[in-house]
């Protein structure tokens, strides 16, 4: 299975997700510099976390409009699976590959801690390693993760089964929903469920030494589905 991780200036979870992908795929992972004109053939494209371009205008905005993203969007439209984590999710909403927007956290502070996530459905490329309704413990680390969508969009997401993960109560301190997201939404799919954007970091819970391993099945599940 061939995977590509796009590296933007200011990406900082690119290596982390590479390690998690290598662990699950066993294969090499192409690290693609945003300025490269060629995007290699890939079964999966990953947009990693970080602060692309410093996130100085709006999170993910400048990366979303960079030349390489035109190619990523074209591949996504052809059905190539795309996973956007944290800053990658912000890029996905900025390009419109998934609906909605991400606003500053309701608490107006950066939040880094474990949260609990309910897997809304196991019926996707990304979640076939989980049971529907399973609750995962995975870290978040962001300043702008408040998912926003208007009423019609929410209804469409709900009806189309496009909500991938919701924040849910668990034993960690602090509110279940760490950022005030509408309907506790932590991750959403595009309408074909080939693109997933999520705020939590599965790559930071992919190895027992991380203090939690619940993210690993996401990467393993992708391998099952794609190879």
């Amino acid at each position, binding site marked *: 299975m061939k995977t590509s991780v796009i590296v933007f200036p200011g990406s900082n979870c690119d290596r982390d997700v590479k390690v998690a992908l290598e662990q699950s795929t066993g294969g090499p992972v192409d690290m693609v510099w945003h300025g490269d004109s060629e995007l290699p053939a890939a079964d999966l494209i990953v947009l990693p976390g970080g602060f692309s371009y410093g996130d100085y*205008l709006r999170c993910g*905005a400048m990366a979303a*409009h960079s030349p390489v993203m035109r190619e990523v969007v074209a591949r996504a439209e052809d059905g190539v699976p795309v996973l956007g984590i944290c800053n990658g999710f912000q890029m996905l909403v900025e390009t419109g590959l998934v609906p*909605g*927007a991400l*606003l*500053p956290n309701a608490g*107006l502070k950066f939040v880094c801690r474990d949260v609990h996530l309910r897997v809304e459905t196991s019926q996707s490329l990304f979640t076939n390693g989980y049971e529907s309704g399973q609750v995962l413990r995975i870290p978040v680390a962001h300043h702008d993760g408040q998912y*926003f969508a208007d009423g019609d969009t929410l209804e469409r997401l709900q009806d189309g089964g496009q909500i991938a993960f919701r924040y849910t109560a668990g034993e960690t301190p602090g509110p279940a929903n760490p950022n*005030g997201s509408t309907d506790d939404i932590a991750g959403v799919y595009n309408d074909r469920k080939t693109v997933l954007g999520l705020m939590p970091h599965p790559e930071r819970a992919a190895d027992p030494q991380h203090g939690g391993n619940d993210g690993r099945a996401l990467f393993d599940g992708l391998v099952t589905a794609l190879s």
Partner: protein
Amino acid sequence: MKARVHISYKNGVLDPQGRAIGQTLGNLGFAGVGEVRQGKLIEIELAETDAGAARQAVEAMCQRLLANTVIENYSIELVD
């Protein structure tokens, strides 16, 4: 020529920064403070000297980069 672009949240989008500022102003003892909204003001120096062309270019910048029209409105003002 210089353009000033004002970007603000659309009605219906919560503006937690604005709300927090309003609350703090209240805590500080300022009375009669109603709604507070925080937006961005981006000032751009342009080589372009024709107002029509400048506005068109800035309009394109807003659409492509400066604003996210899912949640934000923008308005453009040209100076000089």
